[in-house]
């Protein structure tokens, strides 16, 4: 086959261009730290990479949601615990008042203490966190329980603000997974409505009134009722505790998933520095060799030797 000068030059240029292209590509990979600069670099890997990115964003969002949910649940649990304690105190005070040895004067003192605890329970039921009412359902800005007071300023009965108090507050903690994060004030403190059986406020008010009036039989009956009331609160509190556990567990799981997503992204996208540096070095050697050989060969021809 005849070899002409133009063939040699053309071949040389083509080869040098190819090597330069590769050098440029490796250089970009090293400088940016990413294997994939644009979709055509890895058409199969790109959709995977974007999907994993999306998944990671969702996981982070769910983690955030869970944090907020836990915040709400913790506040609920705290207030339920306080209410429990108050009710227990009332119970023990009431039992003290049952003793036949007390005078009306002493019973009146106990009644005052009970009244104080009643106010406390009302304030726990109307507790707020961050300006929002914990037991108000979706009606966050209005107090869920309204007290009706007598002339002396003491609570006679408590009614509910009906708007939203029975609604669930849900948080999204996973793909199509929502969890109810609130405890409905109505269910906890007045499950059958104001004034009916299970109305804790009514029970405590009744105990106070019985102590004042000296109605020991009524007091005893009311104290039994109060135990049921205490059960309501305790049950709800343990519900909340279970939810908190469940969310903590979900949080752990999400942490692991996030970690694995990061690994996947790294595998798909990050440059393997060792590999690329080696390739870059090799290409550079080839480049220099080609350049020097080319310049020497192309200049030579028979003309030089005549």
């Amino acid at each position, binding site marked *: *086959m*005849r*070899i*002409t*000068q*133009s*063939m040699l030059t*053309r*071949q040389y240029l*083509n080869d040098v261009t190819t090597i330069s292209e590769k050098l440029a590509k490796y250089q970009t990979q090293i400088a940016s730290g990413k294997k*994939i600069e*644009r*979709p*055509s*670099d*890895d*058409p*199969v890997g*790109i*959709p995977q*990479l*974007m*999907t994993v*990115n*999306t998944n990671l*964003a*969702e996981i982070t*969002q769910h983690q*955030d*949601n869970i944090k*907020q949910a836990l915040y709400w649940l913790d506040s609920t649990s705290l207030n339920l615990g306080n209410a429990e304690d108050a009710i227990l105190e009332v119970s023990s005070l009431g039992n003290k008042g049952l003793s036949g040895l007390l005078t009306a004067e002493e019973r009146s003192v106990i009644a005052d203490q009970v009244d104080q605890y009643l106010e406390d329970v009302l304030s726990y039921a109307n507790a707020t966190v961050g300006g*929002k009412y914990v037991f*108000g*359902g*979706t*009606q*966050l*800005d209005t107090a869920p329980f309204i007290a009706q007071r007598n002339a002396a300023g003491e609570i006679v009965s408590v009614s509910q603000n*009906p*708007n*939203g108090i*029975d*609604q669930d*507050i*849900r*948080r*999204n903690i996973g*793909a*199509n997974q*929502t969890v109810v994060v609130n405890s409905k004030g109505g269910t906890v403190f007045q499950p059958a409505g104001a004034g009916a059986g299970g109305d804790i406020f009514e029970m405590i008010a009744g105990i106070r009134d019985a102590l004042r009036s000296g109605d020991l039989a009524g007091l005893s009956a009311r104290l039994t009722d109060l135990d049921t009331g205490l059960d309501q609160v305790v049950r709800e509190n343990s519900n909340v505790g279970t939810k908190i556990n469940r969310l903590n567990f979900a949080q752990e799981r999400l942490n692991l998933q996030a970690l694995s997503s990061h690994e996947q992204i790294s595998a798909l*996208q990050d440059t393997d520095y060792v590999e690329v540096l080696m390739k870059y070095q090799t290409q550079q050697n080839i480049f220099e060799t080609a350049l020097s050989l080319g310049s020497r060969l192309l200049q030579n*021809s*028979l*003309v030089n030797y*005549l």
Partner: protein
Amino acid sequence: GKIELYFNEPSSAGLNSIMNEFWGAWHDVSNNPSDQTARVALLQQADQFAGTVQDIDAKMNNLRLSLDNTLEQKVTYVNSLATQIAALNGQIIGYEADGRVANDLRDRRDALQSELAQLINFSVNEQDNGSVALFIDGEALVWYTQANALALERDYSDELTIRDIRWEFSGKPVNISSGEIGGVLAARDTIIPAYIQKLDDLAQGVIEAVNSVHTGGVGLSGFTALSADNAVSSDSEALDGSNSGLAFAPQDGSFLLHIKNSATNTVSDATVAFSAGDTLEDLRDAINTAVTAAGGGVTASISSHRLNLAHDSANYTFFFSDDNSKVLNSLGLNTFFSGSDASNIAVNAVVKNSPAMIAAAKYVGGTDTDINPGDNSNALEIISLRSQAALADGATFDTFYNTKLIGALGVEANQATRMRENQEIIVAQLQTRIDESSGVSLDEEMSNLLQFQQAYIAAAKYMVVVGQALDELLRII
């Protein structure tokens, strides 16, 4: 290449990340429905999403327009080359009529043909008289000394875009299948429109899905007045017909219009039904009738082909729920996005101006006579849209974008690069074969030169010897 740059994936400025942030903002609103900051942030993210989609759409359309310019230049060049080849044909015929071979002229003609081959596809036929005839798909581009020009057919109604390339003399379209002109035509008419269409599909899907859920929800308070976002072409045209001028059509069904009277703290419910064939006027009347039956408080009217709802006095506010007729969606009442495709997707001005109107909540009725600020059920429903198969082939928004758009883009771009590389190798090899026969090898020529030089010297010496011999002979005579 260019389209890849417009989409800018994978990067934090690409649509993938922006969509992630958009959905994330909905999560934030669902966590704090009464929080103004979360709502404002959502509006910003939605704006960025809509803006980016519009931007990519505009860039691709601009690319199409710029390809028109390229097309014009190349066609002019083709015509000029054809004319030159025709002229050379004439010269070659004249020169070779005497039996000589017009090497220089033929070389020039070959060079011109090479250039032409880069631009357009044609077949070559060498005639007996030395001229060369070029045909594009059977029609003659160059015949003897005549060159048939290519003309551009323009569409004056659409920004002077070029519609087609035709033969000037006959008006028939030119069948161009390869070459640079073929490539530009393919990009302009097939490739770019396909991606514009996919982006449109994505935008339409998002608009329709989000709006459908949003119209059934309620913001932090009811409306005092609301105008429809979309106008119809005529008030007496059927809303679900093809002449209505609406991008999305409603269907048989009904929606609930709730009117809250803050003076009496009651909410009345009006059911408004929509049947196929109803016009805007029919709808207005249906609303007014239903409202009056429910106790009044809101009046519907039409102005400049848009439906308006307004409260009768300061006590009344109104809101919607349970729309299975999609009327609210198609007219643009209580929607989140306005627009119908990638070129005009935007955030509805009503929501933009008052973030409190973002419908994160749903009206639950019953004992609730108020809208509950902690209710996030509508926001949660919008979030769940992300995992639903809302687009063709059961794809979710993300799958559609990742696989059908960006994935396909990557494959096509990759394929184009590979094919170009392959073609370059083939061209290089063919070039080598040409050079093999026609190129000049310095070594070969130099050795020939040495040979002839020696022969010349030898001949010269021979001449000297013959001259000396003749001299001797003449001296003797």
